[in-house]
């Protein structure tokens, strides 16, 4: 039997929308999803940007946005007992590849050892216009390490 967990950590931003059916607002997606069997556990993070838990974006600077994005990924991973070393694949969406390349060393302060199979794409816009970068990640850990 698989265990499925749908997690919405307080210290990660998530989009909540009020609807007729849910006047108090409902979560439009799950920030952290975990699917576990006896041996291994998959961890899926919603695409992370530089948004703080309150929804604000502190800076337009690409380097700072990379740092905040990676910090948010760290929060999501840490929430279930995973680390950057456990990330197996990532997709990075940026508004401007050249701007990203100039400061992409910032990312490798976080992804230090095991570097995931990765894809990098330039796109025309992210959900919030101020965001310049978004990173999605998938990680796998031993189920014995899963802590929520």
């Amino acid at each position, binding site marked *: *039997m*698989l265990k*499925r967990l*749908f997690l919405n950590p307080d210290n990660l931003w998530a989009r909540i929308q009020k*609807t007729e059916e849910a006047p108090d607002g*409902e*979560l*439009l*997606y*799950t*920030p*952290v*999803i975990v*699917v576990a*069997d*006896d041996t291994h556990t*998959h961890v*899926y*993070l*919603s*695409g992370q940007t530089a948004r703080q838990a309150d929804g604000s974006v502190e800076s337009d600077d690409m380097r700072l946005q990379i740092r905040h994005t990676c910090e948010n990924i760290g929060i999501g991973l840490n929430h279930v007992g995973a680390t950057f070393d456990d990330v197996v694949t990532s*997709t990075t*969406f940026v508004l401007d590849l050249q701007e990203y390349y100039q400061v992409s060393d910032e990312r490798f302060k976080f992804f230090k050892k095991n570097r995931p199979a990765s894809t990098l794409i330039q*796109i*025309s*816009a*992210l*959900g919030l216009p101020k965001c310049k970068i*978004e990173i*999605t990640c*998938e990680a796998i850990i031993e189920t014995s390490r899963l802590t929520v």
Partner: protein
Amino acid sequence: MLKRILLNPDDMWSRVENGELLYAPITVVSDDTHTHIYLSGQTARLASGELKARDMRSQIRQVCENIKRGLGHVGATLDDVVTSTTYVLDLQEYYRVSDERFKYFKNNRPASTLIQVSSASIPGTLIAINCEAIIETERLQVS
């Protein structure tokens, strides 16, 4: 031992050139306990390749119908989707009618990413969604 299944159902559109399938619409990788399901990015194209839905709301509906059909081919449901990436041509247009999506993704909402791109698939395509699902292998049914 892993079981791998590559499916190309008749009721889903897929790209064939010179008699060769360019990608698998549905890929399944399964061990004794759990089964991963990967769907190719779904657009509003019908199995025939036609794009009848022209506005964003009806395209979202058709895309979700296509995803549901793909998942149904292996015994999975929308509740089993763990992650999705949504590509749209116009974010504002998407936000105005995105409630349509939540008529399908009702309970378990996947870890998600939303991106605006400059084009997707054939002209007229406004949205494409990629999905990955996981189910217990005992639920796997290929049809």
